[in-house]
């Protein structure tokens, strides 16, 4: 789960991390009012979307007067920003953060992520901040310094010293940086983050250590113990269909192909997309109906798949374990009837109660293409799409 920069900074303040004064604005007037309230003569107008690379896309502008604040706010609000993280469709800017300016001495990068292999938290730091860290990692990996922290031990002062010295800091700045890193680590653990990135962390000409930007990701599975953070979720930033699907316990991700997929289990759902591609088709979505699907959730799955106008055929691939094939078959029939199915439907059933499931499909008056196995299913659905194009 993601939150906006201004929300991340509010949370960071609670952990003793220094950020610049700033206020969120939803309109141009609010932006100017926010700037007036800040004790500064330079402001930064920043688009609030859940994606990095905003600066390059024109979503971050420096203003030297209130007129310029107004001008930038007018330009950025409502604009669709396309960055390397938004996808080609981009994201519309609905909120701005108006922040005071500062006199930057140097830009650094710090980040926290989990190392899956060891189950430890990795603190990464680099003196090359303010640029794409992926590029630094690729071109000059020696400039990224890492310390692994065992959460059973927690943060101790040497972590900050090692990283601080490695980044070339010393004296008072190093001490301030150590405090900053400790605060960030505590935030990461206490708030169940999955990633925390500050790019850039800056030192200022007057010796301060500040977070100029902030990106926090949270573990959705842990939000039951953080209702305050969960409340920061911005549904505008999430796909409407994905949110709708989640309400029914379905895991749905829209893709750009034309074969709709309805599968049980995440691994099998991915493998179904893969095999469609291998046979020359393109999947329109990832859809895992989960282990506890009912007739109703299968129906819902169908209506979400069909709300994508690109879908030219549907493949249902179910390997019944907990899920029984006869229940799926009934769900498929009910769904096909209620949504008035107009595209070819290929169904492959296997596993628990498969004979009953196949019988239900065979005896229905619906035109269903049944497949004998996984490969047969992929070939038949790709064929069904091709025959429409011919």
């Amino acid at each position, binding site marked *: 789960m993601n939150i906006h920069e201004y929300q991340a900074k509010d949370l960071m303040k609670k952990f003793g991390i220094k950020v610049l004064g700033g206020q969120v604005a939803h309109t141009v007037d609010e932006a100017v009012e926010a700037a007036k309230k800040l004790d500064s003569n330079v402001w930064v107008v920043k688009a609030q979307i859940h994606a990095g690379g905003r600066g390059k896309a024109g979503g971050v502008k420096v203003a030297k007067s209130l007129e310029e604040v107004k001008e930038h706010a007018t330009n950025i609000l409502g604009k669709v920003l396309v960055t390397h993280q938004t996808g080609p469709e981009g994201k519309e800017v609905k909120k701005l953060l108006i922040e005071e300016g500062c006199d930057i001495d140097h830009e650094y990068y710090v980040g926290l992520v*989990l190392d*899956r292999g060891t189950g430890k938290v990795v603190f990464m730091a680099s003196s090359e901040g303010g640029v794409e860290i992926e590029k630094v990692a690729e071109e000059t990996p020696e400039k990224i310094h890492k310390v692994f922290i065992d*959460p059973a031990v927690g943060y101790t002062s040497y972590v900050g010293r090692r990283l601080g010295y490695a980044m070339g800091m010393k004296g008072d700045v190093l001490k301030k940086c150590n405090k900053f890193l400790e605060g960030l680590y505590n935030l990461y653990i206490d708030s169940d983050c999955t990633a925390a990135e500050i790019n850039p962390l800056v030192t200022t000409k007057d010796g301060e250590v500040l977070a100029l930007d902030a990106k926090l990701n949270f*573990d959705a599975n842990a939000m039951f113990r953080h209702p305050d953070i969960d409340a920061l979720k911005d549904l505008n930033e999430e796909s409407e269909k994905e949110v709708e699907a989640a309400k029914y316990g379905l895991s749905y991700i829209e*893709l750009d192909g034309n074969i709709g997929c309805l599968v049980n289990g995440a*691994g099998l759902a*991915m493998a179904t997309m893969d095999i469609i591609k291998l046979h020359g088709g393109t999947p329109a979505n990832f859809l895992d109906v989960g282990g506890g699907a009912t007739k109703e959730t299968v129906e819902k799955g169908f209506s979400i798949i069909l709300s994508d106008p690109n879908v030219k055929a549907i493949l249902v691939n179910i390997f019944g374990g907990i899920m029984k094939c006869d229940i799926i078959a009934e769900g498929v029939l009910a769904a096909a009837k209620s949504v008035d199915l107009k595209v070819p439907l290929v169904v492959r059933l296997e596993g628990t109660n498969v004979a009953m499931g196949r019988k239900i499909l065979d005896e229905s008056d619906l035109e269903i293409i049944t497949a004998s196995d996984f490969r047969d299913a992929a070939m038949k659905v790709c064929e069904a799409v091709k025959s429409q194009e011919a």
Partner: protein
Amino acid sequence: MSILINRDTKLITIGFTGKQGTYHSLQSRDYGTNFVGGVTPGKGGMTHEGFPVFNSIHEAIEKTDANAAMIFVPPPFAADSILECIDAELPLVVCITEGIPILDMVKVKSALKGSKTKMIGPNCPGLITPGECKIGIMPGHIHMPPQEGGKSVGVISRSGTLTYEAVYQLTEREIGQSTCVGIGGDPVGGLNFIDTLKLFEADPDTDAVIMIGEIGGNAEVDAGRWIKENMSKPVVSFIAGASAPPGKRMGHAGAIISGGDDTAEAKFAILEECGVAIARSPAELGERVEEVLKSRS
């Protein structure tokens, strides 16, 4: 022979009296597993479906001699149950629960180090030694024990239903399975590919192994390098998610491409370099196994 579980395994279920716990415990019993009871705090002393219920894992072990537990506790409390099993020195814990916070599992992983407990999962279908013992939610009937004079294959997978698909392809070809282990789809868990491969390498009755991976993380790459150095038995592998876009979590918490070496393409390439037989299509797993078994016999 088999790995981890066999007909001598004595199973208890944590979260036994819940709907899922009850259903799958009875399914395991019906399959032939030596199921001996369950734990639900507050319900100790009760009899549920003819089996004793205990308040604590320590008590259950003392009274039943159990050496394996299957966990169906809801996500907020599941890590606590695993930690209790570790404290009780239970040899094997299988955690089926999906949706446990990652940092809870980080604590569990730390507690597992140096302990007497092996853990499978979480967010997994469990494991099965066909014909002997089933711990988990997989459909038992698709599996086949090794046949007299026939070959036998071990299966390790991060996915549930995709494992069933692989097993089904083996059974269709009358290739028996020694043990099938679903290690789970979460980023931090118990036994990994290498731990499980070691067990299969040492098992005299496993002739080959199927390893089913996914995008995200580098567990498959590490496994490939280990196989190259240490494994004498043939390994067949499929990686799910070749068609997945980067940055999107594909259902499993662990299945997300975060850049670099964790795409399906990169994993296929490294595994191939390490001498693993690759199935580019998930429908080819059975065929690949047949090929490697023939070429080695």
